[in-house]
């Protein structure tokens, strides 16, 4: 029998994968993929909890997370386009002017 725990562990693993991606990726586009994974992990968790608790708030949350993710993509892509147009690269190693 699959319990809530299973789903939550899956969510944890997905989140970690996303995190790994965020940490390791240097290409901003691919990095954004990883952030989507992180949000999706939360979605899984919420959906599972919601289902096991018979409570809709989790689904609500997941729903809004989806909305947020979509908005983020819009803004993020806008930014990426801006960057690409200006600098012709999306490698974040190139964006290290400000430091210290």
């Amino acid at each position, binding site marked *: 029998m*699959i*319990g*809530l*725990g*299973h*789903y*939550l*562990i*899956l*969510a*944890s*693993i*997905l*989140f*970690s*994968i996303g*995190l*790994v*991606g965020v*940490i*390791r990726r*240097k*290409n901003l*586009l*691919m990095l*954004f*993929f*990883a952030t*989507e*994974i992180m949000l*999706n992990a939360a979605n899984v*968790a919420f*959906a*599972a909890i919601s289902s096991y*608790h*018979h*409570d*809709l*708030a989790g*689904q*609500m949350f*997941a*729903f*809004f997370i*989806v*909305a947020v*993710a*979509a*908005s*983020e*993509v*819009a*803004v993020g*892509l*806008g*930014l990426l*386009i*801006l960057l*690409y147009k200006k600098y012709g690269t999306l*490698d974040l190693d190139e964006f290290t002017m400000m430091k210290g």
Partner: protein
Amino acid sequence: METFAFYFLSISIVALFAVTVWSRNILYSMTSLAAGMVLISGLFFILGADFLGVVQLIVYVGAVMALYAFGMMFFDATGVVKEKNAPAMTVFILGGLTALMLVVIFAAPSIANGAPAFYPPMAGANNPQAVGLVLFTKYLVPFEVAAIMLLVAMVAGIILAGKKMDRSLSKIKDAELEGGEAKDSK
């Protein structure tokens, strides 16, 4: 059945997302991400969150991935991406520890039992109905805020990707600006 579906889906999702994260090819990466998303919606269906599953499919696979694909084309990044990835060791340790942390948090035995349901699905309603009921009563405000957020995102996207950003007024001397545009307030 459910067990099988769960394991199948989760293993697939993990694998796909791993590809997303590790692949050097942006196309593979994106495709596996999209596939993963689709499979996640499968999980939602299993969990009885039909509406969420649909939203996931439409928004993620439909909109988000389309956007990404569009972006990808724009960036002309179909091929292999060269990046100096962070040292594997660091990534592994950090990723592992985070996973451990999360698992410890979420795998606690007491999580599964005992929490009361504050907004149980209405008797007799199917999932979309139930969701709709809650969403348009209790969560109407966030819903509207989300609408604003999407509006913001849209405006932001338009502005950021817009042509007007090509020329930066913040960098051009005012004297040079005088000719082209009307005088700013002063």
